[in-house]
């Protein structure tokens, strides 16, 4: 059937009228903060306690926008007669966000988890020079970094956790062995049974977390 002439015009009117009755999609940004996804690339936060001044981030940065100054300090020997050790101390860590292109390579490459994405994005300045932010500012942004998203159920245990759990288990087994030895020597095997029942549960709980 051929369409009625002018039906297209009427259809257009219907579309606009229908849109008018629907809710608008405008984000009222300055009044209402946007809900950002957890992986938002807003600004780079520095967890400076983790930084070892290895310079990998500054070297990998395609824009060369990371400035790091450091000096070496000698740490006195831990035990008498031992050797003194040297350690890098961070003097300056600055990122020029006028140059930064938010590629995230520095965060990717940092071997000590000292750099993170923060969703903070409101740091505009009137002068472009003021976009070079120093370590204290980067440290402040670290507080806005969200927690890492939870692992998928059934995912492989992160290796840090696995290592920690294994050490803990070893330690516990050792303690129990010692206790059992002591109990055998004292001739009272009662305390042993309680601990044995508890033992298999704990590793299982940790694995689920």
């Amino acid at each position: 059937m051929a369409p009625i002439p002018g039906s297209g015009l009427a259809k257009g009117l219907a579309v606009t009228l229908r849109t008018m009755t629907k809710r608008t999609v405008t984000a009222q940004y300055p009044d209402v903060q946007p809900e950002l996804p957890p992986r938002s690339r807003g600004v780079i936060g520095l967890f400076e306690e983790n930084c070892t001044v290895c310079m990998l981030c500054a070297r990998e940065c395609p824009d060369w926008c990371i400035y790091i100054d450091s000096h070496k300090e000698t740490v006195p020997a831990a035990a008498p007669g031992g050797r003194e050790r040297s350690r890098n101390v961070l003097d300056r860590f600055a990122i020029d966000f006028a140059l930064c292109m938010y590629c995230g390579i520095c965060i990717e490459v940092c071997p000590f988890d000292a750099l993170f994405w923060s969703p903070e994005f409101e740091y505009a300045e009137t002068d472009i020079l003021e976009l070079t932010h120093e370590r204290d500012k980067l440290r402040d942004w670290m507080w806005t970094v969200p927690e890492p998203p939870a692992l998928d159920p059934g995912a492989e245990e992160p290796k840090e956790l696995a290592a920690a759990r294994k050490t803990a288990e070893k330690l516990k087994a050792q303690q129990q062995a010692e206790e059992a030895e002591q109990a055998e020597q004292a001739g009272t095997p009662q305390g042993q049974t309680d601990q044995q029942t508890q033992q298999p549960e704990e590793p299982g709980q940790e694995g689920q977390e």
Partner: protein
Amino acid sequence: MNDVLDVALRLLIVFAVFMLVPLIVGQTEHKVMAHMQGRLGPMYAGGFHGWAQLAADGVKFVQKEDIVPAEADRRVFQLAPAVALLPYLLVLVAIPIGPSEGAVGQVVDAGIFFVLAVMGIGVLGSLMAGWASANKFSLLGGLRTAAQLLAYELPMLLAAASVAMAAGTVSLPGILNAFEWWWLPWQIVGALVFFVAGLAELQRPPFDMPVADSEIIFGAYTEYTGLRFALFLLAEYAGIVVLCGLTTVLFLGGWHGPLGADGLGWVWTLLKTAVLAFVVIWLRVTYPRLREDQLQKLAWTTLIPLALAQIALTGIVKVAIN
């Protein structure tokens, strides 16, 4: 003395309406257009949903520098906005709002004649602006405006003539006195032609080809700044009010409503005018701009034959009744 006071009061009221109602239409356009496009529109000026946006715009326009191009024909250039705006004020004087004598600025016996003739003057403003700007784009826009207004004046007049024939009078209150409900279906074609041609006269989208701000940078108004530009914009909105008022009076039965309360006639007039103003905005949001040749074709091959057919129909029915 009493007469002078009466006239002064009427003029004052008409002037107040002239200053206020176009602003309301403009604000409605801001909001309706925004919501039809899935956004919010102005939200800040004045607090509640940006009701004072147009007032703020007015302040902005006043602050801007008033520039007249060096090569322009100074006096014509400066007069053009006034020439574009004033006719609508004059037309407003003659539009009856309610049935009583007090509900119209001035009863003009040759109402339709007066109204259409005076509205035609508004064209002159655009032409003056286009010519006096001494600028190719403005001239082009001005000439396009002239071509468009020539083309659409005719169907508008013919459609109005049909109503005048039906009522047997050219007085606007006279037409409304003669109005019967079955005129609505009888004159529907004429009403559509009148409304569409009126839209084109106002250069409202989708008939805003002469001003086409994205293609020929506002046509005849390219060189205008500040308050003079604002006056052209105001003329457009005043034009909407006048066109919707006229369509209401000529075709929709003005103060006649389904509920025959004579005292509230003016409410019906205003309501119908408001609905038509909404339709004007609605059409603007919905349809894309017509091309120059499409625009001319619509006027000469569609609207004029339709208007003529309406006149023929009116004549036949009129004779049959008698």
